[in-house]
Protein backbone atom coordinates (compact mmCIF):
# COMPACT_ATOMS: atom_id res chain seq x y z
CA UNK A 1 0.00 0.00 0.00
CA UNK A 2 0.88 3.64 -0.12
CA UNK A 3 1.41 4.04 3.58
CA UNK A 4 1.71 2.20 6.87
CA UNK A 5 -1.55 0.52 7.77
CA UNK A 6 -2.55 -0.41 11.30
CA UNK A 7 -5.50 -2.43 12.47
CA UNK A 8 -7.74 -2.19 14.30
CA UNK A 9 -7.96 1.58 14.59
CA UNK A 10 -9.70 1.22 17.94
CA UNK A 11 -9.79 -1.65 20.38
CA UNK A 12 -11.66 -1.91 23.66
CA UNK A 13 -10.80 -4.92 25.77
CA UNK A 14 -11.46 -6.17 29.24
CA UNK A 15 -8.70 -6.24 31.80
CA UNK A 16 -6.91 -9.58 31.71
CA UNK A 17 -7.63 -10.34 28.06
CA UNK A 18 -4.96 -10.67 25.39
CA UNK A 19 -4.88 -8.33 22.38
CA UNK A 20 -3.10 -8.37 19.04
CA UNK A 21 -2.32 -5.23 17.09
CA UNK A 22 -1.32 -5.46 13.45
CA UNK A 23 0.97 -3.32 11.33
CA UNK A 24 1.45 -3.48 7.55
CA UNK A 25 4.55 -1.45 6.68
CA UNK A 26 5.36 0.28 3.43
CA UNK A 27 6.48 -2.29 0.88
CA UNK A 28 10.25 -2.59 0.73
CA UNK A 29 10.91 -0.92 4.07
CA UNK A 30 13.41 -2.97 6.01
CA UNK A 31 12.93 -1.33 9.39
CA UNK A 32 9.79 -1.39 11.53
CA UNK A 33 9.16 0.33 14.85
CA UNK A 34 6.48 0.14 17.51
CA UNK A 35 5.88 3.09 19.83
CA UNK A 36 3.36 3.75 22.55
CA UNK A 37 1.85 7.18 23.08
CA UNK A 38 0.15 7.91 26.36
CA UNK A 39 -1.45 11.20 27.27
CA UNK A 40 1.25 13.71 28.13
CA UNK A 41 4.01 11.11 27.84
CA UNK A 42 5.29 11.61 24.33
CA UNK A 43 6.32 8.61 22.29
CA UNK A 44 7.73 5.65 24.15
CA UNK A 45 9.87 3.28 22.09
CA UNK A 46 8.82 -0.36 22.37
CA UNK A 47 10.59 -2.49 19.78
CA UNK A 48 12.57 -2.16 16.54
CA UNK A 49 13.03 -4.65 13.71
CA UNK A 50 15.77 -4.15 11.10
CA UNK A 51 16.01 -6.65 8.28
CA UNK A 52 17.09 -10.08 9.48
CA UNK A 53 18.81 -8.77 12.59
CA UNK A 54 17.61 -9.69 16.04
CA UNK A 55 14.98 -7.15 17.11
CA UNK A 56 15.81 -4.46 19.63
CA UNK A 57 13.32 -5.24 22.41
CA UNK A 58 14.83 -2.89 24.94
CA UNK A 59 11.71 -0.73 25.17
CA UNK A 60 9.17 -3.43 25.96
CA UNK A 61 7.78 -2.51 29.41
CA UNK A 62 7.14 -6.05 30.65
CA UNK A 63 7.14 -9.67 29.55
CA UNK A 64 3.43 -9.32 28.80
CA UNK A 65 4.45 -7.49 25.65
CA UNK A 66 5.85 -9.26 22.61
CA UNK A 67 6.10 -8.61 18.90
CA UNK A 68 6.99 -10.50 15.81
CA UNK A 69 7.57 -9.65 12.21
CA UNK A 70 6.80 -12.35 9.69
CA UNK A 71 8.60 -12.56 6.37
CA UNK A 72 10.17 -9.18 6.92
CA UNK A 73 6.83 -7.50 6.39
CA UNK A 74 3.74 -7.59 8.60
CA UNK A 75 4.23 -7.17 12.33
CA UNK A 76 2.01 -8.09 15.25
CA UNK A 77 2.29 -6.60 18.72
CA UNK A 78 0.74 -8.82 21.37
CA UNK A 79 -0.18 -7.72 24.87
CA UNK A 80 -1.09 -10.52 27.24
CA UNK A 81 -3.26 -10.14 30.33
CA UNK A 82 -3.94 -6.49 29.59
CA UNK A 83 -3.93 -3.95 32.42
CA UNK A 84 -5.54 -0.54 32.58
CA UNK A 85 -2.14 1.13 32.35
CA UNK A 86 -1.74 -0.45 28.90
CA UNK A 87 -4.39 1.94 27.58
CA UNK A 88 -2.67 4.13 25.01
CA UNK A 89 -2.26 4.72 21.30
CA UNK A 90 0.11 2.21 19.74
CA UNK A 91 1.94 3.58 16.73
CA UNK A 92 3.78 1.60 14.10
CA UNK A 93 6.30 3.08 11.69
CA UNK A 94 8.48 1.75 8.92
CA UNK A 95 11.67 3.00 7.33
CA UNK A 96 14.22 2.17 4.68
CA UNK A 97 16.73 1.95 7.51
CA UNK A 98 18.02 5.52 7.52
CA UNK A 99 15.78 6.49 10.40
CA UNK A 100 13.23 8.39 8.31
CA UNK A 101 10.14 6.81 9.78
CA UNK A 102 6.69 6.84 8.21
CA UNK A 103 3.93 6.35 10.74
CA UNK A 104 0.58 4.66 10.62
CA UNK A 105 -2.55 6.20 12.12
CA UNK A 106 -2.20 4.14 15.27
CA UNK A 107 -4.39 1.79 17.26
CA UNK A 108 -6.16 3.28 20.26
CA UNK A 109 -6.31 0.62 22.95
CA UNK A 110 -8.68 1.03 25.87
CA UNK A 111 -8.60 -1.49 28.70
CA UNK A 112 -11.73 -1.46 30.84
Amino acid at each position, binding site marked *: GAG*VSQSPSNKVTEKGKDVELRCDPISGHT*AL*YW*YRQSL*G*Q*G*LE*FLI*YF*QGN*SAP*DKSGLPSDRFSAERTGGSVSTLTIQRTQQEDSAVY*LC*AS*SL*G*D*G*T*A*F*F*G*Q*GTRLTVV
Partner: protein
Amino acid sequence: AQSVTQPDIHITVSEGASLELRCNYSYGATPYLFWYVQSPGQGLQLLLKYFSGDTLVQGIKGFEAEFKRSQSSFNLRKPSVHWSDAAEYFCAVGVNSGYSTLTFGKGTMLLVSP
Protein backbone atom coordinates in the same frame (compact mmCIF):
# COMPACT_ATOMS: atom_id res chain seq x y z
CA ALA B 1 22.08 6.82 24.80
CA GLN B 2 20.58 9.74 22.97
CA SER B 3 17.91 12.03 24.40
CA VAL B 4 15.76 14.93 23.23
CA THR B 5 14.42 17.88 25.18
CA GLN B 6 11.60 20.09 24.02
CA PRO B 7 11.43 22.71 26.75
CA ASP B 8 8.06 24.18 25.79
CA ILE B 9 5.01 22.03 26.47
CA HIS B 10 2.59 24.57 25.01
CA ILE B 11 3.11 27.61 22.78
CA THR B 12 0.44 30.05 21.61
CA VAL B 13 1.12 32.14 18.53
CA SER B 14 -1.09 34.62 16.74
CA GLU B 15 -2.01 33.76 13.19
CA GLY B 16 0.47 35.41 10.83
CA ALA B 17 3.18 35.69 13.47
CA SER B 18 6.50 33.89 13.30
CA LEU B 19 7.14 30.64 15.15
CA GLU B 20 10.15 28.97 16.69
CA LEU B 21 9.93 25.63 18.49
CA ARG B 22 12.97 24.59 20.47
CA CYS B 23 14.68 21.23 20.45
CA ASN B 24 17.88 20.20 22.19
CA TYR B 25 19.45 16.79 21.85
CA SER B 26 22.10 14.78 23.56
CA TYR B 27 24.23 12.45 21.49
CA GLY B 28 27.97 11.90 21.25
CA ALA B 29 28.32 12.06 17.49
CA THR B 30 26.50 13.76 14.64
CA PRO B 31 22.91 12.65 14.89
CA TYR B 32 20.12 12.29 12.44
CA LEU B 33 17.49 14.88 13.40
CA PHE B 34 13.80 15.01 12.57
CA TRP B 35 10.70 17.08 13.16
CA TYR B 36 7.29 15.45 13.02
CA VAL B 37 3.81 16.95 13.34
CA GLN B 38 0.74 15.22 14.75
CA SER B 39 -2.77 16.53 14.26
CA PRO B 40 -5.48 15.29 16.65
CA GLY B 41 -6.34 11.65 16.08
CA GLN B 42 -3.69 11.27 13.42
CA GLY B 43 -0.34 9.59 13.12
CA LEU B 44 2.91 11.51 12.84
CA GLN B 45 3.87 13.24 9.61
CA LEU B 46 7.48 14.03 8.77
CA LEU B 47 8.11 17.76 8.35
CA LEU B 48 11.84 17.71 7.68
CA LYS B 49 15.07 15.95 8.49
CA TYR B 50 18.78 16.62 8.83
CA PHE B 51 21.41 14.04 8.04
CA SER B 52 24.46 16.05 6.96
CA GLY B 53 25.54 19.01 4.84
CA ASP B 54 23.74 22.32 4.87
CA THR B 55 22.67 23.03 8.44
CA LEU B 56 19.51 24.88 7.36
CA VAL B 57 16.97 22.42 6.06
CA GLN B 58 13.67 23.14 4.38
CA GLY B 59 10.59 21.05 4.91
CA ILE B 60 6.99 20.82 3.94
CA LYS B 61 4.31 23.39 4.77
CA GLY B 62 6.82 26.23 4.83
CA PHE B 63 8.79 24.96 7.83
CA GLU B 64 12.56 25.08 8.21
CA ALA B 65 14.99 24.01 10.90
CA GLU B 66 18.59 24.84 11.67
CA PHE B 67 21.12 22.40 13.10
CA LYS B 68 23.54 24.10 15.49
CA ARG B 69 26.17 21.65 16.66
CA SER B 70 27.65 24.06 19.20
CA GLN B 71 24.29 24.39 20.93
CA SER B 72 23.11 20.80 20.33
CA SER B 73 19.94 22.31 18.95
CA PHE B 74 17.62 21.76 16.03
CA ASN B 75 14.96 24.48 16.31
CA LEU B 76 11.95 24.53 14.02
CA ARG B 77 10.83 27.81 12.47
CA LYS B 78 8.09 29.20 10.31
CA PRO B 79 7.88 32.87 9.26
CA SER B 80 4.09 33.12 9.26
CA VAL B 81 1.83 30.70 11.09
CA HIS B 82 -1.54 29.62 9.73
CA TRP B 83 -4.45 28.37 11.84
CA SER B 84 -4.03 24.94 10.25
CA ASP B 85 -0.58 24.65 11.83
CA ALA B 86 -2.17 24.08 15.23
CA ALA B 87 -0.97 20.60 16.21
CA GLU B 88 1.61 18.83 18.33
CA TYR B 89 5.20 18.91 17.16
CA PHE B 90 7.81 16.30 17.98
CA CYS B 91 11.56 16.51 17.60
CA ALA B 92 13.42 13.22 17.25
CA VAL B 93 17.03 12.07 17.12
CA GLY B 94 18.39 8.96 15.43
CA VAL B 95 21.77 7.33 15.57
CA ASN B 96 23.95 8.06 12.55
CA SER B 97 24.17 4.55 11.21
CA GLY B 98 22.10 2.06 9.28
CA TYR B 99 20.69 0.67 12.51
CA SER B 100 18.70 3.47 13.92
CA THR B 101 15.98 3.69 16.50
CA LEU B 102 14.42 7.09 17.02
CA THR B 103 14.20 8.88 20.34
CA PHE B 104 11.47 11.48 20.59
CA GLY B 105 10.99 14.54 22.72
CA LYS B 106 7.77 14.89 24.68
CA GLY B 107 6.32 17.26 22.15
CA THR B 108 5.21 20.89 21.96
CA MET B 109 1.56 21.71 21.49
CA LEU B 110 1.10 24.70 19.20
CA LEU B 111 -2.05 26.77 19.61
CA VAL B 112 -2.84 29.45 17.03
CA SER B 113 -4.94 32.41 18.09
CA PRO B 114 -6.94 34.52 15.63
